[in-house]
């Protein structure tokens, strides 16, 4: 085996071309990680929205909360179901909710439109949705025109500070609190009391009913019993599955885009690596001749040059990870086309992503180095030395 230090030294001997090649690979890796971190963050925001222990009731056939509609009778039937968990005071943990979209901030006649979710919840919602925490202020008082604003909206829309007044649906609403929800999509919503929202929006109809399962393992039983109930036509989803489903359309698009862009890029970077390695080997032919004369086997030469190429790629991979790391946590927003609402979420660079970025770099290095290394191994000693 040719000691690896030989390759390290050769790489260091030509800093400019090494740096350029590594930079190329590094940018490809950075983009790879960045795009997947985007898709990842979006998926995570929606996946965290749902709770495993909760079930969500929608009208049969509705594929989002927006397209659903349930009467008060359904809400009472669900509340009375034995599968629903009860709070300490013996009342069921159920939140029949009103869900609408409103254009917020600058309305659609200017350049920026954002369809923001307004969710009317029951008192119990704050317990049912266990990830929701009021960070500042007091929860809206029942019977008053008051709302609580998700943390992610506060930074992006005017009039969302505590004590300020938001105007929508032809009324003024006082903002009394801000809430967080563990980075989930709820943080891009405005919450108020369902009974307040019903008359100003769609009348006497709820869009969804969320409840805590008495026994999270018995979801299927609860689903069967509610869906079989002849008095209503509903679909029952596990909340976590439902929100994860809502992310599918967009995360699939982002994923496909990431895949297409990075694969084209990767091919380009591999071509670059091949060229660099060919040039490196061509200029080092006498050296390789000496190695072969010394008795190193062609297979060792092959391995050695593969290692060199992989080494350059790893430098690139590390550079790429460093470029991508600052992306972590950056907040961006887009419309979730499944629910038509705007959702803010953060890039999520996970250790797994960094690792796959590095692995991707190594693969590019090895693929790019293989043919040049093969040529090095096959050099004729006499010719190479001349």
């Amino acid at each position, binding site marked *: 085996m040719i000691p690896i230090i030989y390759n390290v030294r050769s790489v260091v001997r030509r800093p400019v071309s090494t740096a350029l090649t590594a930079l190329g690979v590094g940018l490809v890796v950075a983009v790879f990680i960045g795009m997947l971190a985007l898709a990842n963050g979006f998926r995570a925001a929606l996946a965290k929205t749902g709770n495993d222990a909760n079930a969500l009731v929608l009208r049969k056939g509705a594929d989002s909360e927006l*397209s659903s509609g349930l009467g008060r009778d359904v809400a009472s039937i669900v509340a009375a179901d034995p599968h629903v968990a009860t709070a300490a005071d013996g009342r069921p943990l159920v939140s029949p909710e009103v869900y609408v979209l409103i254009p917020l901030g600058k309305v*659609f006649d200017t350049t920026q439109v954002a369809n923001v979710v307004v969710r009317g919840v029951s008192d119990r919602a704050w317990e049912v949705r266990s990830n929701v925490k009021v960070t500042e202020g007091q929860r809206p008082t029942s019977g008053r025109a008051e709302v609580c604003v998700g943390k992610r909206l506060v930074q992006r829309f005017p009039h969302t500070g505590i004590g300020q007044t938001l105007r929508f649906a032809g009324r003024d609403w006082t903002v009394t609190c801000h809430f967080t929800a563990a980075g989930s999509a709820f943080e891009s919503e405005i919450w108020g009391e369902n009974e307040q929202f019903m008359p100003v929006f769609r009348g006497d109809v709820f869009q969804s009913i969320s409840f805590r399962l008495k026994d999270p393992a018995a979801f299927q039983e609860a689903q069967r019993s509610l869906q079989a109930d002849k008095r209503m036509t509903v679909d029952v989803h596990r909340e976590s599955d439902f929100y994860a489903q809502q992310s599918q359309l967009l995360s699939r698009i*982002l994923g496909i885009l990431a895949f297409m862009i990075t694969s084209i890029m990767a091919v380009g970077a591999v071509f670059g690596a091949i060229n660099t390695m060919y040039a490196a080997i061509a200029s080092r032919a006498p050296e390789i001749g000496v190695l072969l004369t010394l008795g190193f086997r062609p297979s060792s030469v092959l391995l050695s040059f593969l290692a060199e190429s992989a080494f350059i790629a790893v430098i690139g991979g590390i550079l790429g990870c460093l470029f991508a790391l600052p992306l972590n946590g950056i907040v961006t927003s887009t419309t979730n086309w499944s629910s038509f609402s705007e959702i803010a979420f953060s890039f999520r660079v996970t250790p797994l992503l960094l690792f796959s970025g590095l692995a991707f770099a190594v693969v590019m290095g090895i693929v790019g180095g293989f043919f040049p290394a093969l040529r090095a191994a096959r050099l004729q000693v006499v010719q190479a030395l001349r």
Partner: protein
Amino acid sequence: MKYLRLVLANLGRHKLRTVLTILSVALALFLFASLRSVTTTLAASAQFGGARRLVTLNATGLVFPLPLAYGNRIKTLPGVTGLSWANWFGGKYGDGKTFFANFAVDPESYLAIYPEIVLPADQKQTFIQDRTGAIIGKRLLSRYGWKLGQNVTLQGTIFQGDWTFTIRGVYTPTDPAIGDDVLIFHHEYFDERIGRAGIAGWYIVEIADPSRAPAIAKSIDDMFRNSSSPTKTGTEREFQASFATMWGNVSFLMSTIGLAVVFAILLVTANAMMMSARERTGEIAVLKTIGFSDRLLFALVMVEAGAMALTGAALGLGGAKLLYPAINFNGAGFLPGFTVATSTLIIGALVAVGLMLASGLIPALRAARLPVVQALRQVE
């Protein structure tokens, strides 16, 4: 021209390297063209919409309907020459995995107000006469293999039940922003099945004089200001633009990210081109010895770099220009009318020229300034 063979011979020396270099330039510029086209297509779709059409929505939000009775009142306003209305239906077809837009419209007035929707006159007539008929964009026809006269069943998500329509016509949009993957059907039939709720999702108002658009929009909104459903009226262009901005900064991020990559690939390519030029120090010395002038050598090296960069650019940009129309790409319905704009091609070509300069200038200068004696000594 007599030096052409020399340049070709140089390029042909390392055939593989030349091919790879050209291909990486091509890939970089292909990617550049594709990503920039996403942005330009979004921008172009925001520009769509006749200045003579206004859209009236419920001021509370996109999802709230307006009373059907508003139509007659809007029609009476001075300056209004045409009116139509539509309602989003949002039905699913099949397993619902492939999505397409579908909505209910008032057929006669809708087709009159949108001359961009072109279909044969006989199909138009049968569609208008058949209450359960529907017309579809030509892309849907090929995607699902439907035929004229076939019954198609959508599952309602907002409006429950199975809705069966008979395909009465296939339209071709003259403006790509209209979308060729849409199904539209009779509002009358829709209204009847939902129990005569008398709702319209939005109104399209045609006006005689585009310059009066703001005034007319204001008078429509004023008319309904104190009603149960206040309205929000804007030009169709503003309405379209609002959809394009819904992607938020994601589309911006995508293109930034993409440009970083283009830069990266070009960097690597420039590096490879410079390395290959450096190898030939000895040769250049020989050429100088036999009487090639400095200027000529400079030009020869530049021409070589330019040949690779420009061939790559032609392949990449030309490929993008030809490929997308050939596969009828519309970004899964999100990018109707996806085209590679001429401005993209021009910028791409400029990038290629920049690449030629970046990768050719240093080796070319070095070739021109090479001291012969030293260079020849280095070789042996």
